[in-house]
């Protein structure tokens, strides 16, 4: 399988006044296309920082991050935004839906930013995804009218509507009850299996971890291990 993300010798140091806080220290790893990876570690271990660097919303202090064959250090802010729009989908811990848009419009939003698709094609994709996440009948509702689990499903649909090769999810089940959380992970796993989309999600919940095909453990800003999860083959 091709390497979709390559992290080489990456360090990230945050400056808090005069104090330097190293969030990541010399991290190197490769993610292959179609994998369903969990990044696990306690709070403050650097999971979110690593996801941010892979997701091109932050840049490393040292080292390189290559996503989809592009070194993020060499890209302008505009190019990074474009990369996110076309190559990466995001699922946030707190759902992060646009409150003034309906479910349908929230899912459609990335397609409108991309442009180039006819309205009928956009409709087809959005309807398909809403059906896939089981929210077809809620397409005209506003996020405030949905439950937490429903909102996260909308977020999943939004993340996948542009058919990105890579989806990043930062603690996607943290604000959900265990059953709902499990359902969301199952949904993501189905998408991974069906479309071959690479998923990287952070969590500190062992139950959630158990769904992944592999778990990258991280502690104190360093990768301390990578282990396959038996019975959960990733991708095609």
């Amino acid at each position, binding site marked *: 399988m091709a390497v979709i993300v390559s992290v080489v010798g990456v360090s990230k140091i945050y400056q808090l006044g005069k104090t330097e806080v190293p969030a990541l220290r010399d991290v190197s790893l490769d993610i292959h296309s179609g994998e369903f990876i969990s990044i696990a570690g306690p709070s403050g271990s650097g999971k979110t920082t690593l996801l941010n660097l892979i997701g091109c919303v932050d840049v490393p202090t040292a080292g390189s991050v290559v996503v989809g064959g592009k070194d993020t250090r060499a890209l302008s802010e505009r190019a990074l*935004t474009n990369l996110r729009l*076309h190559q990466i*989908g995001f699922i*946030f811990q*707190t759902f*992060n839906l646009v409150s003034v848009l309906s479910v349908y419009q929230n899912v459609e*939003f*990335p397609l409108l930013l991309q442009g180039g698709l006819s309205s009928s094609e956009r409709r087809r994709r959005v309807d398909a995804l809403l059906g896939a996440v089981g929210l077809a009948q809620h397409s005209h509702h506003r996020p405030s009218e949905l439950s937490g689990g429903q909102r996260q499903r909308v977020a999943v649909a939004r993340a996948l509507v542009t058919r990105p090769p890579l989806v990043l999810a930062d603690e996607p089940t943290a604000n959900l009850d265990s059953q709902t959380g499990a359902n969301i992970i199952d949904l993501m796993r189905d998408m991974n299996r069906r479309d071959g989309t690479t998923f990287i999600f952070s969590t500190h919940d062992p139950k959630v971890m158990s769904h992944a095909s592999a778990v990258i453990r991280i502690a104190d800003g360093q990768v301390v291990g990578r282990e396959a999860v038996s019975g959960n083959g990733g991708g095609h």
Partner: protein
Amino acid sequence: MGILLLISFRNLFASRAKTFIVGGIVLFSALLTVVGTSIVDTIDSGMRRSIQGSLSGHLQVYDAHSRDDLALYGGMMGENDLNPIRDFSKLKAALQSVPNVESVVPMGIDQAMLGAGNLFDQALEKLRGDVRRCTNGGAARAVPGRSPCAALPEVEKEYQAHKAHMQRMVGLLAKDLRQALSIIDPGTHNASELARNREALTRAIEPAFWASFDADPFGALEFLENRIAPLSLDGGFLYIRYVGTDVAAYQKAFPGMEIVEGTTVPQGQRGILLAKLYAEDWLKLRTARRLDKIKYARDVLEKRIVAKGRLARGDEELQRWVKENQTSTRDILLQFDPIRAAEATRRLQRALGTGEADLQKLVVELLTTDDDNFDQRYRIFYDELVPLLQLYTVKVGDSITIQAPSRSGYMNSVSIKVYGFIQFKGLEKSSSAGMTCVMDIMSFRDLYGFMTNDKQAEIRALKQTANVKAVSRENAEAELFGGDAEITGTAQSGNIDEGKLIQAARGNATSSREALLSRVYSQQEIDGGVVKNAAIILRDPRRAAETAVEIQAAAKRAGLDLKTADWQKAAGMLGMFVTLARVVLFIAVFIIFAVALVIINNAMVMATLQRVKEIGTMRAVGAQRRFILVMLLVETVTVGLTFGAAGTALGAGLVRLIAVRGGIPAPNEQLYFFFSGPSLVPHLDAAGLAISLSIVFVVSILSALYPALLATRITPLAAMQSDE
């Protein structure tokens, strides 16, 4: 773009309170801009029309070496000191060569004094006239015990009435004067003069004086004229402001001048047109003037005196006028001879439904007005009493004497006929601009002290009569005192008949005065003399600025050094009012929009900070910075333009409503001038509306810029941060 607009509009609805607060500020600002601009523009155009149409024309020219700048309505220190332009015809020829100049009107604006005359003098003059007619100018001697007019029945009736009137006036004067004299501190006045005055007064009111009047009418008249008339407290001199001009040319150039009574001054003749407002304020019976002012205040300004039984306080100025009317009945009573006094008594008894026989008490009762009876009393005054009175001290057809100090300090005077009364459109009630009288230019030149052709001819005639011979300085002693001096005449001793001399002098003066009044001057004579300034009427007023340059060049070529002034500059401080009003409006609009900008900016910054996560998410999923910037700008500009348009529309509606309801009334004469009429009827124009919307648009953009730029700095990282 569609999703951007959708997000923007929905965000506006989501924060309705903020949207309406911000929108309300924008709406109010736009409304104020539209209404304010409309009012100022209307004042500007109204004043321009009034001033240009009455006195300034499109441009004014005057000598560039004058000490003061031209101020058509006077400056703070009085009339401006302008150098004379000696030959108007030269100026006229030079300026009319400029293509855009349609006409050039000569002017000389100044102040003078008008002899108001008092009632006592007028009554004495009538009585003297009767006696002169009856005694053939004094040639026939009076017969003791017989009226001098007994032989002329048609004059006898008038003589008796005038004599009775004079006796009545003396009686009324005596009452007032005795009171006045009694409160004078004897230590501060010449005691003997006081004693003489008391003695004269006592003699004048005794029946014996009037019984012996017929025996020596001229002696009695002389006594009254020399000893009693000076004690009369009315009359004196009034200031009069005038523009000396070619009246025919002036009337053609200034359509704003309306003749409301009488006719214009005949072409080429001397004469004056008095300002109607001047006549109302200064020449009208004071009581009538006060009644008119009370009526105007009640009917137009909706003020009230105090009605009986009501507790509300009325207007103090109206109350003061009512009080003055009640206590100042003398100027009415002095006008009545016994016949007219009886008729006035009868009329007032009937109108007021009373049996009171004392005329003074009847007049006081008539003038005791309140809000309930004012209209009725006003009508009675004008219907019943005014026909028996002389309402104005000067009428059309009267000759008046105007005096003014010349530049060299001597007093010049002219006798001039009143041909009519005028007013200026839009300035009817303005004491600043509506009081200017229009006088022929020859009379102006006499008053100004410049040697006119008439004066030169008069001096030549005097020299001839006196056989004056020019003597050189070198030969002066020999000529004056030498033995070979030519005897030109011999003085003869004899008595001087003063009466004959005075009569002859009066006769000569009268005939020369009459000759002047009827003389017709040619256009060459009118143009060929001095002026102080000139009004220029242009064919195309829009080209005033460039024409002013051409005028100065043409004048220079003719050897004249002139300054030009547009209507605003020429109107001096009054003309600056419009500029001042614009500055005040600009400052007010600036302050309001500055405050609006700050408030909108703060509101949008707070809104942006509340939407950090949402904006970060949009950035994370692939929205560029430009998308965020445009989204914020669209939100603010939508609020700005929507509420700005609403404010503009409301402002336009308010202006229209004010116009339909008759405009904003002028509560005093200063505002009457600035409103160019009794009320300001504002008008709208597209430029004013466009300005308002443009300001709103610019302010919206400016107030959104900082929060929008702030929003573009929100990174996708913000979306990743949890709320923990």
